């Protein structure tokens, strides 16, 4: 109950921050990078497209600048509900650190699973706009389940684990009907079942490489529409796991506020088939 209250308070806090940012929109505290190049907050806290972390670093902070974001996300599936609150910091467009708390409500089965994710991402080289090879980053996501009872009962080996990934993002100018196209590819080494919500490893396998990718078109400089795909491991014999995909639309009101909506198709989750639903995420950046 108190956790629910905490989550609701954080959502309200993010909404307030977003509203203040929208109303004041003080350009002096915004980073120098071009609007939209900080992407949005992925469900694991890192800057990305929603399902997958991207190579770009959060907010619009550039060299010698700092950026901070707060985000609140809700996804409503047929038999589950996911809430994520997170915050991230960008140091000189070189390092990104993030924290996220996921609350996964089993609306049909009953109960909930909570997970904390601590992320770090470093830009190796490049720039999403100017470098011919785009921007390349490596990152880690250390995940800890608050209570591992359900995942352990399903056969997961561990209640904590760490993903490592390498990611590349590139904006292709004037690539589709005069519009700019953003492409991203991520290779992730992980043992996480359903992103870690169902624990780590299992009777069918452990650590493995998975591929994730997305393509989006900037309809206007403020509005990107695209699709994302995330390959998943399948470690638990009692709970078949499928790849995730989404169709997303993200609107950047300015450098401080973005609102993302998505349609999700997450396949089977914990024995319940073909989970589909909607996704809304609000981010405030300073």
């Amino acid at each position: 109950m108190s956790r629910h209250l905490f989550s609701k308070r954080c959502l309200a806090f993010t909404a307030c921050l977003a509203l203040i940012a929208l109303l004041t929109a003080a350009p002096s505290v915004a980073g120098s990078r071009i609007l939209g190049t900080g992407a949005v907050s992925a469900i694991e806290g890192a800057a990305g497209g929603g399902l997958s972390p991207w190579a770009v670093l959060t907010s619009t902070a550039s060299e010698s600048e700092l950026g901070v974001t707060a985000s609140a996300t809700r996804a409503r599936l047929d038999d589950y509900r996911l809430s994520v609150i997170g915050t991230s910091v960008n140091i000189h467009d070189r390092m990104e650190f993030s924290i996220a708390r996921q609350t996964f409500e089993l609306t049909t089965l009953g109960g909930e699973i909570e997970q904390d994710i601590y992320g770090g991402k470093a830009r190796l080289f490049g720039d999403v706009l100017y470098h011919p090879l785009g921007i390349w980053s490596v990152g880690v996501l250390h995940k800890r389940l608050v209570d591992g009872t359900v995942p352990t009962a399903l056969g997961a080996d561990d209640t904590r684990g760490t993903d490592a990934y390498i990611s590349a993002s590139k904006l292709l100018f004037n690539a589709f009907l005069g519009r700019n196209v953003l492409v991203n590819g991520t290779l992730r080494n992980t043992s996480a079942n359903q992103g870690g919500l169902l624990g780590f490893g299992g009777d069918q396998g452990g650590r493995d490489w998975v591929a994730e990718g997305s393509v989006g078109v900037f309809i206007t400089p403020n509005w990107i529409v695209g699709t994302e795909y995330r390959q998943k491991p399948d470690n638990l014999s009692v709970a078949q796991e499928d790849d995730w995909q989404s169709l997303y639309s993200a609107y950047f009101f300015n450098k401080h506020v973005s609102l993302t909506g998505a349609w999700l198709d997450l396949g089977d989750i914990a024995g319940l088939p073909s989970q589909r639903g909607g996704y809304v995420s609000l981010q405030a950046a300073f």
Partner: protein
Amino acid sequence: MRLTDISARHLMLTCVLVSAWSLSGCAQRHDTSTLYARMGGQATIDAVVENLLYRIADDDEVVSYFTNTNIDLFATSFATQLCDISDGPCRYEGPPMDRAHQTMGITDAHFNRVVAYLDAAMQEEGVPLSARNDMLGRLAPLYEEIMRLQ
């Protein structure tokens, strides 16, 4: 017989080449699909450069790079470069980008700000989005040259 054969072929080839050349000439004169034309020609490019300079003048940090710059010369030179890069009837013959910006201490933050000013200037001068994207895409590779000797 053979000789006339060859000369007939020659004539044919020459005809084809000449007509292709004249067609491409016509195409160049009347083609509205060059970026230069889609930008709105030299008038718009000149307006964009002027608009950009006003924005730079308002940015205390960025304008400091121009303290020893002849602004009129810079404006003409940059307009020529934009005309050249957008396939207009100009040829940029100024210094290469790395030498033009060497040891100025330009940071990524400054570079990003100027890009944002240029895009805003193009937008304000009525350059359509697709032409703006095209122009920014053609300018983007200059980043490496400009930053090479910082």
